[in-house]
């Protein structure tokens, strides 16, 4: 494959109070096999050698599972490749002489910390409000004591595959966290272990989501389309019906 020359426009913001702006950088002779984040590594090495502050961005596992990546690439969370996080996007998906814009997640509930790094602790607080099954260590029955049909196990897994990256919020015009929240609610309500707490759980988590300032869902489906793990928008339908049922029982 041929080497790439690209132009980058990257959001630089020194601190939360800072205004921030897009800054242009050029990189030449890139090996197309490098990942998008490795391309940013190369840029950072260059910036450091020129005594310029390197770009801050979140990353850790670089294999698509930890959910740290949080950047809009040309207006799409995680970039143009479907079902892929930014760390698994490789440069051969871009053309020579491309201009690529890189920005952080934009949402009031995800304040910018620096450059491409945002604060996603609101997600943790939503889980703390009820995204668990209350079982103490040591009090569990035998694993096979609770049979679960294969289809329920599969459905629970599909919802549980969420990596908590926040792409759904970033792409939503209302900055709604409904996909994230509903995925956890679906996982735990489809399993018999989660049934005893399901009414309290859905009310508490939905209230917490509102309290954290996330917007409402208006069913555009952008979250599902951009989710790197293919979390289905049916989860939101499921959450809404669980919420109604729980409210009626109250």
């Amino acid at each position, binding site marked *: 494959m041929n080497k790439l020359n690209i132009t980058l426009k990257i959001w630089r913001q020194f601190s939360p109070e800072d205004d921030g702006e897009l800054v242009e950088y050029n990189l030449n002779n890139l090996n197309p096999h490098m990942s998008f984040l490795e391309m940013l*590594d190369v840029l950072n090495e260059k910036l450091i050698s020129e005594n310029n*502050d390197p770009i*801050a961005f979140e990353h850790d596992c670089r294999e698509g599972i930890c959910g740290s990546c949080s950047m809009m690439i040309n207006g799409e969370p995680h970039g143009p490749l479907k079902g892929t996080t930014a760390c*698994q996007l490789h440069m051969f998906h871009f053309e020579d002489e491309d201009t690529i814009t890189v920005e952080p997640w934009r949402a009031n509930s995800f304040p910018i910390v620096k450059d491409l790094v945002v604060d996603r602790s609101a997600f943790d607080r939503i889980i*703390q409000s009820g995204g*668990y099954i209350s079982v103490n260590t040591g009090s569990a029955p035998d694993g096979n004591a609770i*049979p679960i049909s294969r289809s329920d*196990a599969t459905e629970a897994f599909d919802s549980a595959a969420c990596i908590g990256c926040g792409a759904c919020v970033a792409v939503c015009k209302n900055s709604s966290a409904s996909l994230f929240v509903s995925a956890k609610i679906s*996982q735990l309500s489809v399993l018999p272990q989660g049934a005893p707490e399901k009414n309290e759980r859905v009310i508490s988590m939905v209230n917490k989501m509102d309290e954290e300032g996330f917007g409402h869902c208006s069913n555009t489906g952008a979250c599902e389309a951009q989710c790197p793990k293919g979390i289905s928008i049916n989860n939101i339908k499921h959450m809404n019906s669980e919420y109604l049922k729980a409210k009626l029982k109250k």
Partner: protein
Amino acid sequence: MATLNSNIPNGELIDKWTNYRSSLPLVSPSNKQKLDIIVVGTGLAGASAASSLAEMGYNIKSFCFQDSPRRAHSIAAQGGINASKNYQNDGDSTYRLFYDTIKGGDYRSREANVYRLAEVSGSIIDQCVAQGVPFAREYGGTLANRSFGGVQVSRTFYARGQTGQQLLLGAYSALSRQIANGKVQMFSKHEMLDIVLVNGVARGIIARNLINGQLERYSANAVVLATGGYSNVYYLSTNAMGSNVTAIWKAYKKGANFANPCFTQIHPTCIPVSGEYQSKLTLMSESLRNDGRIWVPGSTDENRSPDQIPEDQRDYYLERRYPAFGNLVPRDIASRAAKERCDNGYGVGETGQAVYLDFKDAISNLGIETIRSRYGNLFEMYNKITGDDPYNTPMRIYPAVHYTMGGLWVDYNLMTTVPGLFAIGECNFSDHGANRLGASALMQGLADGYFVLPYTIGTYLSNEINKSNINTSHEAFDKSESNVLDTINYFISNKGNASVDFFHRELGKIMWEYCGMSRNESGLKKAIVNLKDLKESFWKDIKVLGSSDSLNLELEKAGRVADLIELGEVMVHDALQRKESCGAHFREEYQTDEGEALRNDDDFTNVFAWAYENAESEPKLNIENLTFENVSLSQRSYK
């Protein structure tokens, strides 16, 4: 040289844990509420320990450097978790899991610990199911199992190829519940930079708030480290970019012994390095070897594409060397065999550092749909990263560093040589000997955190109930904090010319070349010299831009790489002194006529535990002798 006492309880192997657990000193509920415990790290071990201890009534302070506890690197484990449930009725038992683990570790682990691990393995599955972990199921609704890593029973529980993720999210949910209950105070984006000892006892930590750069002091009655492995000493590994040795290295420098640092596992099937910019390596599940055939061209001057090379000009070297196990030999053997071919010029791809993993025969025998159903997601991932399609052309793979068996030395209670300082999960050395079996890392992390430490820590804490609260204004905290601050200020003010990554890559090259898949005396001696030079130039020439009072990722990395360089020196030292081959530690001088690892049980049936002396001296060697009363030591053979 001192001999370390592992405090293994008396009695028969099968009764030790049960009897010991029943005789452990207890801490009453009202006293638990007065005791504070710091847990550093929120992976499987850390999150499970923090939540379990909080449920028991202790006050927990939990720390992680990631932006959320859910992102710890346990999340990336693919394959599964072992447990001796015997759900498949194939004759599995606690003893068999114990025996497989001891043998797989090449007889360099502690019998009592490994037996306990096997004993609690079943409870882990129960706990995780109760938390809502969506394990794979059979049509009847019972839990499914698969076989793994060459053992003869099916005992591996799994959640597709994302078992680590699902188990970690289970532990994270338990942790979140305790945060909501107010029993765990969570400190995300905090990095532990020192252990504070008062009168030789662990009393707290110094942590840096990574967002505003402030150093903060935290005290407790005990400190638990659950900070994972140190594979990133090789720069390129399958570990996450942030995985580091700093927490356990600071503990080592405060007196905790570091055991078997040179025992590092190389995974045979990873996507090869494609260029100098490479930042990490991606693992392809071991399961691919069930159907894929590994080969290289039979000639060193081969330029044809793989499909143009006829059968009789290919060397299926694993099948040739190990006819009984073929492509399914254990990880260490498969890795070394690939290196041997590449070192001799038979490697493929642009760099010559790769071998083929070919599914052509499997596709023609089983059909493309069967292969797709078994490996579809892996083929897709490979295609995403390399641009090649494994359905039509062989994968290219090469071994990569994956896991570290070495770590802080701990006794049966999981306490280090520093009173009040505990180590659990990958960061201790205890259970895997010289080689870890597949699907056992998740088991150990959760065993330590859910079912072992919460009990054994009581032995120590029952003596703490009459101690007064620890004040963070104690001079030990002053001194510790000022040392940490000095190092940070040094990095920020040093006028060097080279980036942190530059030094990290150099470190990786030295370690991979001389202390990687195989080691020899002259290479290790060369590494000692090279590492000394590297350390000198690191401190002279390191360049860290920006300030220390805000988010500064380069500053974080600089501290970690400084510790990794020092660790490298001790690893090399350890590898040099262990004059035998065992498990993942292959010393070229000690091999059979057929090129297999040759143990020396007379001299090395022991644990090397290194004690820090000072910056100038070599570490001091302490020994734990391993005694095997229940298994007999034998040579592993896969021919």
